């Protein structure tokens, strides 16, 4: 065999191998948040299907992109028959379905819900690893950290803010919403009340503690008494600011956009 032939043959082999490599494992996601990380990190043809929540406008921050993919119903039978190489699921994904898929011999990767930016970083790196593109995860985390550092800089005043949801529920500092709030340059009033993780703040207590900003959840359609509390006349004099939305739900780089929105109301960042 001529050397040139050997070279081209070897080249073909390497190229062929890298073509297979580029395709990567085919993945099914069973959780709203892994849906989004998979969409951000995987190649489109790697995605077999996303969870049914992916197109839920109230919870999913990436409904537009999710439209171009199939969605599964979450049942083990359907997912098994779609023959994925790997399945990503959340800690609270239907246990029966997850166990069934595991016992059928499929690889199921279970992710903790992000309760801090550290979990966000860890989940990004792990999803990237699982779908065979670890370098994309590393790049995404680096970009995340750079943008976060830039947003956190130049904050001198820290207005007192509270996240107030239906039924008077508030999120403490040890939660993703709490971290978003703190990173945007606000002090979380929940800490003054001794609620590290979160909990219920009675309306009277909220009025008495006089926060500078109250951030409420976006109301769902239909009526609920739990949300009626957010329109109570006693709250009228308090400054009701931005609503939390789908970007606050999952630990993805989209939380940075949520921080940016919050900073529009921040005295040190408003002018920029």
């Amino acid at each position, binding site marked *: 065999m001529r050397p040139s032939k050997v070279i081209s043959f070897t080249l073909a082999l390497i190229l062929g191998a890298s073509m297979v490599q580029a395709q990567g494992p085919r993945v099914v996601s069973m959780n709203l948040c892994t849906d989004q990380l998979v969409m951000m990190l995987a190649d489109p043809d790697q995605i077999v299907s996303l969870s049914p929540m992916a197109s839920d406008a109230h919870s999913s921050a990436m409904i537009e992109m999710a439209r171009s993919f199939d969605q599964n119903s979450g049942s083990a039978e359907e997912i098994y028959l779609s023959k994925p190489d790997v399945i990503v699921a959340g800690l609270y994904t239907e246990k029966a379905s997850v166990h069934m898929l595991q016992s059928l011999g499929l690889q199921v990767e279970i992710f903790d819900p992000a309760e801090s930016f550290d979990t966000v970083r860890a989940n990004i790196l792990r999803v990237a690893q699982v779908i065979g593109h670890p370098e994309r995860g590393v790049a995404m985390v680096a970009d995340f950290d750079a943008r976060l550092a830039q947003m956190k800089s130049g904050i001198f005043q820290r207005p007192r803010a509270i996240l107030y949801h239906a039924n008077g529920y508030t999120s403490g500092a040890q939660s993703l919403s709490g971290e978003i709030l703190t990173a945007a340059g606000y002090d979380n009033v929940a800490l003054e009340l001794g609620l590290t993780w979160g909990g219920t703040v009675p309306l009277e207590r909220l009025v008495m503690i006089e926060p500078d900003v109250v951030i409420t959840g976006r109301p769902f359609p239909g009526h609920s008494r739990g949300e009626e509390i957010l329109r109570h006349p006693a709250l009228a*004099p308090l400054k009701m600011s931005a609503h939390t939305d789908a970007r606050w739900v999952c630990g993805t780089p989209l939380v940075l956009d949520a921080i940016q929105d919050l900073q529009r109301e921040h005295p040190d960042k408003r002018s920029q």
Partner: protein
Amino acid sequence: MNKITPLLILFLVMSFVGSLMIGQANASFGDSLSALFSGDGPLGRVMQDIRLPRAVLGMMVGVSLGLSGAAMQGYLRNPLAEPGIIGISGAASLGAVVSLQTGFAALFWLALPVSALGAALVAVLMILTLAGPRGGSLTLILAGIAVSALASALTSLALNLSPNPYATYEIVFWMMGSLADRSMDHVWVALPFCLIGWAMIASLGRALNALSLGEDTAASMGINLSRTRLVLIIGVAASVGAVTAVSGAIGFVGLIVPHILRNFVGARPSSLLYASALGGGVMVLIADIAVRLILPNGDLKLGVVMALIGAPLFLHLIYKTRGGLE
């Protein structure tokens, strides 16, 4: 008017003030009182926007339920007739839930109480038709069970079908009732129909007195029986419907209060009406204070406390009247 009336008025004032003074925001009696009148600062808002509507609503709920219970019992000559037990409150809840979930409640100011009133009206008519003019205990209770079961099933269905994920969790509120975090808006919505209902029921005193001697005697005394029946039905539906629309279904008030007061004012329906209205207000205000003292940070339902007090009494009454049930 009789000897116990001034005492009941005193209790009502005391429990009203007590209701105003108890809450999660710890403040002294004097500070709270001056904040209530001045409305200054956060405490002023707490007093005027949170505590005052709660106390006023508690009183309205109690008066409506006490009065309705006494009137129903007088009319049916049956101590077990009570809006909660015989399903009127449950039906009013259903009317309110359907109106809130379909958006009808948002159409005009009184749409919410109108819906609750309409559903309560249907329930009263069903009960009176099923139980017959003499209102035998067994048929009355059975009719009440049927109406309550239907109303609570349909309420759950309406809440389960809601696109709002919180709605399902509120089945308990509509079945057990609560006065937590209501506002003056709720007071204004309920007040007109409460006043109409109270006035209608209060006008029945003489007719109910005559009815206690039997229908024929009452008719011979010049009481228009069909008119009495109509006024009673609309009066009960209006007052129970209006308070249930804003506070959920609260049971047993109309059972306990007339039962206790009968020992003091005697069995004459007209005196029992006034006493039960005042006593109902006292009862609900005290129960609502208990709710806040037992679980200050939780949302213990008012109906739970009322049922804990009322259910044993209900059993006792059934035991006492069991001869009549057979």
